[in-house]
């Protein structure tokens, strides 16, 4: 029973506001990812939850208990650090046992918990070794095992996979997901890697300049970004943003037209690279500049009336730089965005039609 309530947290460093009146509700046992570019305040928020940083204003409640003024050790949580922070002068066993020993657990309890946690993370063979003799991936496992050994109600993770190489990261990611799901801990996971956030979390909170731009399930976030920033940050390649003139309730560009719930002027169409079909005529005119065969798709980069766009074509498509193609985006998947505010206009009218 340890949901986290973040109530209008503010953090200023001098004149700079790192977090602006940020509120967030994490349900008990939920896995939330804080996703954003560096400097968006996600790590600051995590450190405030942990008690390693003091908020300028606002309250933090964990399991209904106000912990805003408590030191980290009294907040009943565990944390995994970006650089692992495994104690170099202790064996792996003592590292994993550290939290339990501090709680004053009996030797028998320590042994059971260490064995359980190290079994989950497959580090039993190294228990008597010192961290200096371990690889980065193994140290990461020790750090996670140390956190899980105390059976925390709340688990905080600060970019735990970012120091691993790509292959290991993929492996650890799926392993983490199953281990954490089994632990039942309420998890807050900070990352700048959107595939990590999408792959692991129940809900993803996209942060930008000290505020949460959008918080939703990964798929909803991907399909219905609330702002232009979210669309551009989530998904690879990023969403295409094509400005189109609107007149009489319809956006038109080239031979393409779609009804849109916007007044006359300009509207931005957010279109995913894979939601675009290539046809011979009609639709959006697209001048191919670069073709990148990525295996699963052929990624085309080019311009629509001078605006940058990327299209994921079938890998066997015969396209060469310099070609002019016609693009037909799936109307029901277009996200219409107000170019002034950068916010989406809600469900596209095309979806209803």
């Amino acid at each position: 029973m340890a949901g986290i309530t973040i109530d209008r947290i503010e953090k200023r460093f001098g004149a700079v506001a790192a977090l602006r009146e940020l509120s967030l509700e994490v349900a008990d046992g939920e896995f939330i990812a804080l996703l954003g570019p560096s400097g968006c305040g996600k790590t600051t928020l995590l450190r405030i939850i942990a008690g390693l940083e003091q908020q300028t204003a606002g309250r933090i409640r964990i399991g209904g208990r106000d912990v805003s003024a408590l030191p980290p050790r009294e907040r009943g949580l565990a944390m995994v650090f970006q650089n692992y922070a495994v104690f170099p002068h202790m064996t792996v066993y003592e590292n994993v046992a550290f939290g339990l020993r501090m709680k004053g657990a009996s030797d028998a309890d320590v042994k059971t918990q260490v064995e359980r946690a190290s079994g989950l993370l497959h580090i039993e063979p190294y228990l008597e070794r010192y961290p200096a003799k371990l690889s980065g991936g193994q140290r990461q496992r020790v750090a996670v095992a140390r956190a899980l050994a105390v059976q925390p109600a709340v688990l905080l993770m600060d970019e735990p996979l970012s120091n691993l190489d790509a292959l290991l990261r993929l492996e650890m990611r799926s392993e983490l997901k199953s281990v954490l799901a089994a632990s039942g801990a309420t998890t807050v996971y900070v990352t700048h890697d959107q595939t990590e956030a999408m792959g692991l979390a129940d809900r993803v909170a996209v942060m930008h300049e000290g505020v949460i731009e959008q918080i939703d399930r990964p798929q909803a976030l991907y399909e219905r970004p609330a702002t232009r920033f979210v669309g551009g940050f989530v998904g690879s390649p990023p969403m295409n943003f094509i400005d189109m003139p609107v007149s009489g309730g319809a956006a038109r560009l080239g031979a393409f037209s779609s009804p849109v719930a916007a007044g006359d002027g300009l509207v931005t169409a957010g279109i995913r690279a894979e939601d675009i079909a290539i046809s011979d005529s009609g639709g959006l005119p697209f001048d191919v500049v670069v073709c990148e065969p990525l295996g699963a798709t052929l990624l085309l980069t080019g311009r629509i009336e001078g605006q940058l766009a990327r299209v994921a074509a079938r890998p066997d498509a015969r396209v060469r730089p310099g070609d002019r193609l016609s693009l037909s985006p799936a109307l029901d998947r277009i996200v219409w965005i107000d170019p002034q505010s950068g916010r989406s206009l809600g469900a596209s009218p095309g979806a209803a039609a």
Partner: protein
Amino acid sequence: MTGAPVSRRLRGLVFWSGIAMLCVWVLAPIYLIALGAFGGRAGVFRWPKSLMPWDTTLAAMQAFLAVDGVWAAALNGALVAGLTMLFSLLLGAPAGYALARYAFAGQSAFRMLVVLTRAFPLAILALPLTVTFIRVGLYDTAVGVALVHTALALPFAALVSSSLFMGIPRELEEAAWVFGCTGFQAFRKIVLPLALPGLAAAAIFAFVISWNEVFAASVLTVRNKTLTAYLLTVLAESPLHFRFAGGFLLILPSVVFMFAVRKYLFAMWGVANR
């Protein structure tokens, strides 16, 4: 084609001749002193000098150690050096920790100030210090000399321990806090064990600084002299081979200490791996 091996051989040559020069620079004087100390009266005055350690004798050494007050002075010197070590660590390590962990106004000025204490010539301070020490009753005591020596060793202790603590990632402490430690517990369980080798090296260095210091020790004491200060007064009136014996005895503890802690000294300079 032969370019690479030749340049490598040249580099090796430069490297080893540099090493050889450093060794000679340090070892030759020590060797000559040892030769004088164990050569006896005849060895010291013989010319041309024999560089080989033939006909050595412990006579000078034994005679020297039998001189009245040498052992008392040695004990006193060790006491002063020990106190210096203790004081400079107790004051220097917390200062170093503060410099490493907290951002505070005037930090770099403080850092500079710490070093600047070394800029004061002791000779100028000697008279006022003597007067003050007589007034507060520290004159001619081990504690008094140790305080002055601490002033000399402190900048070193503070700056070395600050770089030591800086080398210990803050996250280790934070992890300790999260997993149930108070600030002090985290320091004792995590930071201290990791910093200990370096701190030991800094402490030994303070010991050696104190052991070798002669000016303050001479000025501020009358009867309770440290070995260095005592030898200065005694040896001035002694035959040459006695002086060699005394000099050798002075070098010995420093060399032994350095040798014992060389591993930690290297760790302190960041040569050893973590």
